[in-house]
């Protein structure tokens, strides 16, 4: 037996369970109360670039040039030892020293809905509980309830909510970057004065009903309305307006909804938002994989690269975790429609900034990109890594309504070699 390795693992486990034990008696304590006990965070915020539909790992971050499974794309050398990327990701290749790749991702969920749930929450779906997404945990544990902007914003897709932590910790959804969020502007014919008149009239209604019922829900609604009005009038609402960005900056992110989404994400992070998801949809390439994937990389590459540059030049990259992944990989075998099908067995996640050691390639797949060579990395491990960097203890639990303690991740352990 390798004593040193065994000893280290044991120590880690003991350390975790001792910490866990200390928390047990405090399961019922309110959210936030335990924040002081969490390990020191390197990241203040997270931007998740969500590649919806499941990108081919082989066509993107784990190329297999010269193999039958490799497809037509060439591989290019990235600025990091042993890191090759698809030729359609040249800008990211140039920033390879900033990026860490986990090429040993592996899961059992090959169905879109289940896999999306799994990768967002770290738990396989189970009808008895709705697990919070990492964004939901971040909002509940690290968000400032008095901030002008919501702590969790999703751009271009609905993301996943906060499950049993409550809808108030779910994402604020921006349908499309480059326009204001839905319903923050007054409807036509209503100016500020008329709006205030309406609110005064509403106050009369609320006062009467609160007196009549004495119910706490009336006050709860008032607080939600106050937050909504605060957002309508928030100076930081300018985060959603890209008009102030230079032509050069906008061009760097690329002329795509996704690129604009990444730019809005940077503006949100600058203004204190904790978790932003930006969705790039269309990776479910059962047909015509190469044409579609190269086009999608045409949007992904400049946006991801510009986000890293932009955060870096503003001194925000070290405190902003950027993650890029989809719900699974795609088959090494190229099907009859020039497509690739679902492949959860082996895929890649990319991480950067926020306490991530750049230039690292963690794990590998076999020559055909079919199976993980060596130990596989589970989704809970990936989320435990992200959570730990954000200052969320992966073992921290909250009670569900049926009295089950649910931890931030389903038993995952942080991937230490990725962390600074």
């Amino acid at each position, binding site marked *: 037996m390798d004593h040193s390795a065994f000893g280290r693992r044991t120590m880690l486990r003991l350390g975790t369970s001792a910490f866990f034990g200390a928390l047990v008696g405090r399961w019922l304590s309110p959210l936030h109360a335990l924040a002081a006990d969490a390990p020191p965070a390197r990241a203040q915020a997270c931007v998740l670039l969500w590649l919806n539909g499941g990108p081919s790992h082989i066509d993107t971050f784990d190329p297999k040039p010269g193999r039958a499974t490799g497809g037509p794309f060439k591989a290019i050398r990235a600025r990091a030892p042993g890191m090759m990327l698809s030729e359609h990701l040249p800008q990211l290749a140039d920033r390879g020293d900033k990026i860490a790749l986990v090429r040993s991702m592996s899961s059992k969920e090959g169905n879109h809905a289940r896999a999306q749930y799994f990768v967002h929450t770290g738990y396989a779906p189970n*009808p008895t509980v*709705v697990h919070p997404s990492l964004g939901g945990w971040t909002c509940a544990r690290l968000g400032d309830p008095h901030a002008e902007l919501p702590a969790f914003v999703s751009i271009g897709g*609905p993301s996943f909510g906060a499950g*049993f932590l409550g809808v108030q910790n779910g994402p604020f959804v921006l*349908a499309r970057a480059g326009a204001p969020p839905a319903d923050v502007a007054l409807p*036509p014919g209503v100016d500020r004065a*008329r709006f205030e008149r*309406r609110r005064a009239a509403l106050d009369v209604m*609320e006062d009467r009903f609160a007196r009549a019922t004495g119910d706490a829900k009336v006050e709860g609604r008032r607080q939600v309305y106050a937050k909504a009005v605060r*957002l309508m009038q928030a100076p930081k609402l300018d985060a959603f307006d890209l008009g102030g960005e230079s032509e050069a900056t906008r061009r760097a992110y690329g002329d795509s909804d996704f690129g604009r989404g990444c730019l809005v994400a940077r503006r949100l992070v600058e203004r204190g938002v904790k978790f932003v998801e930006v969705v790039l949809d269309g990776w479910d390439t059962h047909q015509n994989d190469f044409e579609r994937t190269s086009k999608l990389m045409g949007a992904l590459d400049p946006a991801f690269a510009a986000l890293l540059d932009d955060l870096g030049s503003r001194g925000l990259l070290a405190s902003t975790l950027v993650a890029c992944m989809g719900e699974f990989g795609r088959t090494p075998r190229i099907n009859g429609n020039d497509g690739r099908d679902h492949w959860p067995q082996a895929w890649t996640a990319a991480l950067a900034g926020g306490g991530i050691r750049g230039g690292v390639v963690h794990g590998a797949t076999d020559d055909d990109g079919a199976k993980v060579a060596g130990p596989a990395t589970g989704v809970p491990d990936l989320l435990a890594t992200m959570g730990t960097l954000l200052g969320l203890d992966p073992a921290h639990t909250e009670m569900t309504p049926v009295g089950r303690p649910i931890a931030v991740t389903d038993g995952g352990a942080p991937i230490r070699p990725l962390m600074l």
Partner: protein
Amino acid sequence: MRNMRALALVAVVAAALAACDRGAPPHVAPRPVVPATVASAAARPALMTSADVDARLQAEWQKAGVAPTPRADDATWLRRAWLDLLGTIPPAEVTLRFLADRSADKRARAVDEMLASPLWADHWTAYWDDAWMGRDARAPEVDRGAFRAWLHDAFARNLAWSDVVTQLLTATGLNSQGGPQRVAYADEGTAPPPEGVNGAVNWTLRYQAAPQDMAGTASRTLLGVQIQCAQCHDHKTEKWTQKDFQSFAAAFVRTRLVPLDPGKPMGAVKRVSLRELDRPAPRYSKMADLEPIAKASPTALDGTDLARDGSVRVALARWITAPENPWFSRAFVNRMWGHFLGRGFVDPVDDLRPSNPPVAPAVLDALAADFAASGYDVKHLVRVIVGSESYALSAAPLADATVKADAEAKLFERFRVTPLGPEELLNALVAATKLDAIVRATGRMDLAQVRFRVKQRYGFLFDVDEESDDGDYEGTIAQGLALLNGTVVATGASVLPGSALTDVLAMPGEDAPKIEALYVRVLSRLPSAEESDRWTKFVADAESAGSAGTLPSPRPAQARPAKRTKNGKAQPPDPLLGLEGRAANQRADARVHAYEDVLWALLNSSEFVLNH
């Protein structure tokens, strides 16, 4: 409970706008109404009445030393009952007729009318479609419309609950007539279910990729047992083991589908025939996580062997619906009580376990036994619950209680305030504003499309947890914004052709009766003298101030939402965008604006948005 609701992330509300599209209120039936399909309680003298429930609860109150609140007034009770039984607010004429009625039995007669209303089946179709299918039922073989048509037919006929469940669990046959994928049929509730189709099979089809979830959902929704907690490891506090879960789930893997449509028609339902097998489907035996389930011997939760003879699915249905089953009747009664009273005897409603005991167990036991004795007559159970004293109580706590008051009113000595669900909120908004008539009057929009898209939007936004028992209101900023500035309220509160406000302003006479008409329509009650004076003055002041009319500002360009994502939950586009601007472009009129402002305040009020 929140997690259940959210997981079943409700495909919203197919009947939501259907009700209002039927023109005149369909429930206004000539009196006396004799419900067609429910045998009258008198014919079954052994069955419970609401008075039996009252006696048992009063004993509980006495024991605990709590005092009930006074009865809610007629208007409050009627609104409550309409929302809970029919999923919408009562039309103005129903409210006025009810308030004018001086007879002692008017509440009982109102319940009979509601039970006989076509809205009854609309509402419970939406409820169970949500509970069983959730929002993510999007497999190409799943015909959601056919599933709903099956549910609708079952509730319209008041099919025994045991029969509904048996049909659900044992369904075989054709899933659909094909055609485009729909969330609901346009003619739902007005046409019989499609010929030759067994809509119930779509539930099994929804779980083709994960039959273990079908077992978990069945156990939770039909029995109130959270057996799937034991999927990954033995249950921590209860007796369930992983083996128990696998053996139970083994009863859910014995089907296969025979494809009837070659190829993969995009956007169309793939017709399949669901067949039952006498052994586990081979495809499950090959999947690593399902193999232990496929290998297990199908066994009920009490150890009953389900594979002894004949069909395992039939044996499962027989075991679940047997009067001796300790969970079946209790789970449904508890769920219904929770729906009507805002909290189950057992809370959360789907979590019946020894370590989570009920309050007022005698009442739950009696109702459960009675439900079984009634032949699982859903309408009978609802009549007993809605007729009970608890359901009639005020939501306001006793002002100067000399007895101790439980802030949570756990023994149902006070009515619990709950937020309207997405379906109810949208139904109520449409009923209050005549939004459907506004859309129809534009003549340029497909009403069915608009209805569908508004429903999607509201389902997405207002997916509140109706079964949550939190005392606090959990809302999102997006919900607040949608009511403050969103198109449904902005359009609905406008003076537009066809709108409720246009009707009200066209009434002859003074302001007071107009304010009264708005109150009856929106809040289902008459305004107090003070309220009437206040709003009359509000209108008069605005009028004399003159230019309340501000120059209309065009709504800033809003985002066209991204197209639907794979998980089908993208925020759908807003079909009403721009419609409200038509009002703003009309001649600004201080008086009209003041009325719009009053209506806006009523629609945004907690009194409107909460069930009380």
